């Protein structure tokens, strides 16, 4: 199983390390052509404005919009996946959600906490860094975790959006959610079966 990490800016190595932790191969993605080689994609944490700029400069947007395999977006990656971004245009889109950037405040308000995540039997330590949150979700989106009244983890089909940073801790359970989606999509596509 090959999982790509969009490697324009941000916590790329951390995600590749986590991908190796779930027994897959991690690939740093710097061009649109590389998207054809992978079974799933991670849009990492970083600065969404910087990533958007680099996506446009290298004309990667059409290929990212066309990418139909499983995707996990964390923090800045969640912003890239949202169909609606407060105060800005949408970026890649594909998830029927409304996100608000930096909605917990500045860095000094960044925190970690234990979250109850649907489908996980014990709490998950979630690290929020200048994090966005999901204001509301549209049709087809399942809410997997809340922090107070804020939605912080969602799934829509084979796309997972996460406001926090699973790549910063050793707990690989959010990565496993992506792995499950990839396994399911591989089963559904006979062309991928040897």
């Amino acid at each position, binding site marked *: 199983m090959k999982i790509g990490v969009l490697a*324009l*800016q*941000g*916590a790329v190595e951390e995600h590749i390390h986590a991908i190796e932790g779930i027994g897959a191969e991690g690939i740093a993605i710097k061009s649109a052509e590389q998207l054809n080689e992978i079974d799933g994609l991670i849009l990492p*944490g*970083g*600065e969404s404005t910087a990533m958007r700029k680099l996506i446009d400069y290298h004309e990667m947007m059409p290929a990212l919009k066309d990418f139909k395999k499983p995707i996990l977006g964390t923090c800045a990656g969640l912003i890239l996946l949202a169909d609606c971004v407060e105060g800005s245009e949408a970026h890649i889109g594909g998830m029927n959600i409304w996100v608000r950037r930096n909605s917990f405040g500045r860095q000094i308000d960044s925190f970690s906490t234990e979250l109850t995540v649907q489908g996980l039997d014990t709490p998950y330590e979630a690290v*929020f860094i200048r994090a966005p949150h999901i204001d509301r979700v549209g049709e087809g989106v399942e809410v997997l975790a809340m922090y107070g009244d804020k939605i912080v983890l969602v799934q829509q089909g084979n796309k997972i959006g996460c406001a926090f940073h699973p790549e910063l801790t050793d707990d690989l359970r959010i990565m496993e959610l992506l792995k499950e989606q990839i396994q399911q999509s591989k089963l559904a596509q006979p062309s991928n079966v040897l």
Partner: protein
Amino acid sequence: MVQLGTDLVKRGMAQMQKGGVIMDVINAEQAKIAEASGAVAVMALEMVPSDIRKAGGVARMADPRVVEEVMNAVSIPVMAKGRIGHIVEARILESMGVDYIDESEVLTPADEEYHLLKNEFSVPFVCGCRDLGEAARRIGEGASMLRTKGEPGTGNIVEAVRHMRKVNAQVKQIANMSPDEIMTAAKELGAPYEVLLEIHRLKRLPVVNFAAGGIATPADAALMMELGADGVFVGSGIFKSESPEKFANAIVQATTHYQDYELIARVSKEIGTPMKGLEIASLAPEARMQNRGW
């Protein structure tokens, strides 16, 4: 339970900046140019290092009005510099909600003996280093991010290269040591033992290490990435160049695609003249900012 200001959160913030460019800005207009060019953060200050050199006198924390103006202008993180050992400047910047503080040798030190005890703050700090001993001392005090000191305001990359190579070579040595050699290394480097143990275990620094101090061209930025920097700070290089917008954009591209030489050639063609550089040997030892702090 909610935990604020932990190492995980403070170091994590710097991890999100990886592969990016942090640009010095002196007002809202420059901050917006930096953000639009794809900077991952801006450093708010009153004068860029090359102007600080020219102006002479005592260089202090930026006027809070400048910091506030920059914070209001952009949505990317805002960093600001405080003087080495100046507890109150750091506390003021923290109270204003600055995202990262640079305890910086570019400013005139407030204390020639003691650096800040940075783990007492909730705001994270970045500090300069020339070798692993200095890097480990700063981590020991609670720095969540490092950068090379280089020689600020010169547009000369030679010192940043020296510092990056030195730190990385020493990290490799620690990583490959047998455990019984580490205490002696701690003694020789003047480094906290626990920090060296962590480096030995991780086989790398426990915090990100950016390049800073002398980056003047896209090729300089790419060189520092090639040598293992996690990202770059550009001080005087951008807004002292002929065409700051093009220059900022070119540095961002070169940092991300540091091994794509055709791309670096292409972006370098469009940017006009870089800042004029200074030969390090022409600087008297007391004019070398890297010698501030220990």
